[in-house]
């Protein structure tokens, strides 16, 4: 059971892709011959490629291939050493970007960031861009980037005003106002 779960997680992306192609080919099969021609020309070979990829992934798991875990700098040093014929090595002045967080911490951060992103999109759909943008910017800068309230408010509101001027005034684009905002504006108009 554990082995099956490990295989599924290892091949998750391939399975997602396989699922997408199978569903799209199945849906296309109901179209007239000319309309389904291209989806079949693409979808059927793609399904075969996904199956081949699944086989390759299963084999790779069995052979438990070593993964190249050298940093970009170490890889560059190794390549340069091969070219110049002597060992090239140096310590960078800046200790490079921060090391990757632990897996559990990564998942936690991913959930938080996806939460912000989905919340922002939901906010746009309900209240519109010009209400959602400043709230999102200030909240993210204050609680995620950990800036001071002053900086967060200054940057968040400043950027919102700048974007409003660029899109609504400069480019003359009517930006989406959201379901609730539209209803409220309609009510006020009455």
């Amino acid at each position, binding site marked *: 059971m554990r082995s099956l779960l490990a295989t599924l997680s290892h091949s998750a*992306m391939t399975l997602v892709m396989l699922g997408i192609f199978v569903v799209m080919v199945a849906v296309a099969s109901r179209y*007239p011959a000319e309309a389904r021609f291209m989806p079949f020309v693409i979808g059927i070979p793609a399904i075969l*490629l996904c199956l081949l990829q699944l086989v390759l992934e299963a084999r790779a798991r069995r052979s438990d291939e070593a993964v190249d875990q050298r940093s970009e700098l170490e890889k560059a040093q190794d390549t340069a050493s091969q*070219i*110049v014929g*002597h060992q090239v090595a140096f310590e960078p002045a800046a200790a490079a970007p921060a090391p990757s967080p632990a897996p559990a911490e990564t998942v936690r951060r991913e959930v938080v960031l996806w939460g912000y992103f989905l919340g922002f*999109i939901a906010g746009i759909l309900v209240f519109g861009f010009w209400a959602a943008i400043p709230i*999102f910017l200030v909240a993210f800068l204050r609680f995620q980037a950990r800036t001071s309230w002053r900086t967060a408010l200054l940057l968040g509101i400043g*950027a919102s005003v700048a974007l409003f001027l660029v899109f609504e005034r400069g*480019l003359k684009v009517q930006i989406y106002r959201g379901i609730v905002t539209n209803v409220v504006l309609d009510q006020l108009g009455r």
Partner: protein
Amino acid sequence: MIEVMFGSLWAMLTSPQTMGLMLIAVLLGLIVGVTPGIGGRLSIALAIPFVFGMPMIPGAVFLLTMHAVNGTSGQISSIMFGVPGDGDDAATTIDGYPMAKKGEAGRALGASITASGFGGIVGACVFAVMIPILEPVVLAFSPAEFFLLALLGITFIAFIAGGDNIFRGLIVGFYGLMLATIGTDPYTGTPRFAGDYLFLWDGLSLVTAVLALFAVPEMIALGVQGGSISAVSQETARFSYRQLFEGVMEVPRHWWLALRTSIIGAVIGMIPGLGSSAAAWFCYGHAVQTSKTPERFGKGAVEGVIAPETGSNAREGGALLPTLFFGVPASSGMAVLLGAFLILGIQPGPKMLTDQLPLVWTLIWALVVGNLIAITFLLFICRWAAMLTFVNGAMLVPFIVVVVALGAYVAEGQWENLLILVGLSAVGYGLLRAGWPRAPFVIGLVLGKIAEESLHKAMELWGLEFFLRPLSLILIGLIVLTIAFAVYRNLRPSKALAGLRIVQ
């Protein structure tokens, strides 16, 4: 030809809109290049909403200039702090950083900025020289070949971006092709995969798809990683303008090497499949091999800075050639640029040589003028530009997410695109997390319509026999060879190739 060539230059230089946009593009490209977390591909994806609806030429000049000067500022952190931004910059680090440690940061930066600009200009010249040579080849292509070229484009990008596994790249490319079939079928009028959703009848929004596959996943990843390059002593960042000028003069002093490596870079750029950092490493290797004192390399030789910089920037000129004339992007950055060009209404293919020659020449001049402006700008501001390296990634995330959401909406004025953005971003992040390439998706989506149209035309003209046309057979051979080579490389990676592959 001469009239078109100089007419395009004159039209570009005398258009305040185009020149103004070019200046903005140079500045943005340089800032993006030095800022951690925003690569060239992402910057083009983010710029798309702002060029939407713009006339073709100013829009294309803006995007190309931004893309071309991106790498010019990328080496600042490599030289000053020993932290390469990407594969191209890694080659510059090997000699650039030891120079900085010896107190010659200004000389190294002067040489690298000038070499980069020089390479960009020579790359554009090589592209220009190749136009009359390639013209008969491009014009010989029929719809049959253009269908196969779309497949070849996906195969090449899958090869470049797929690393050890070409099949992942191919699957992602086919995913892009499949999504390109969404919308009304041009022959029967059947709404494919669109149901009653009218906003899908015209097809999936290319802008939304590109932003979802590239920008959102990159931003989530940047947010997860967090932080910036840790603080460093300001000592390394101190140098005089005299030292910078000494570095500038190193390029004319090594003009023969700079010219050779520029031409090598441009030629490598023309060959899809060699990867973004191959040009820089090939040129670095060439400089070592042709030097009378190869033992100086790796310890602070200025030729080790000049060669990779000229090569990697000259590559952009060469890479434009297959991108514009065949619709086959030579790098993943060019793949996103091609998508952006299509949004502006630029159709790659033989028409670029017949109907759109002034545009082609304008783009060549944009590379030349853009690089000249970039050198001038960067030589003055590089001391301060280096400080951008320390921008906290988490601070950039919300602003970019806002631009992405605005871009997805503005592209077609449809709020439903925000839902598409969320769905495709989830797939994009899954691809990023699983280490799958995303560039083939753009090529599939971009070339999908052209491929379908070409396939239908070829079938009407020749039936299945179109596969047996001589040019078709060559292209099929190239596709098969690329896949076979990728599989062979995967099974038996050679030492020499491993050196190049690890930095791609």
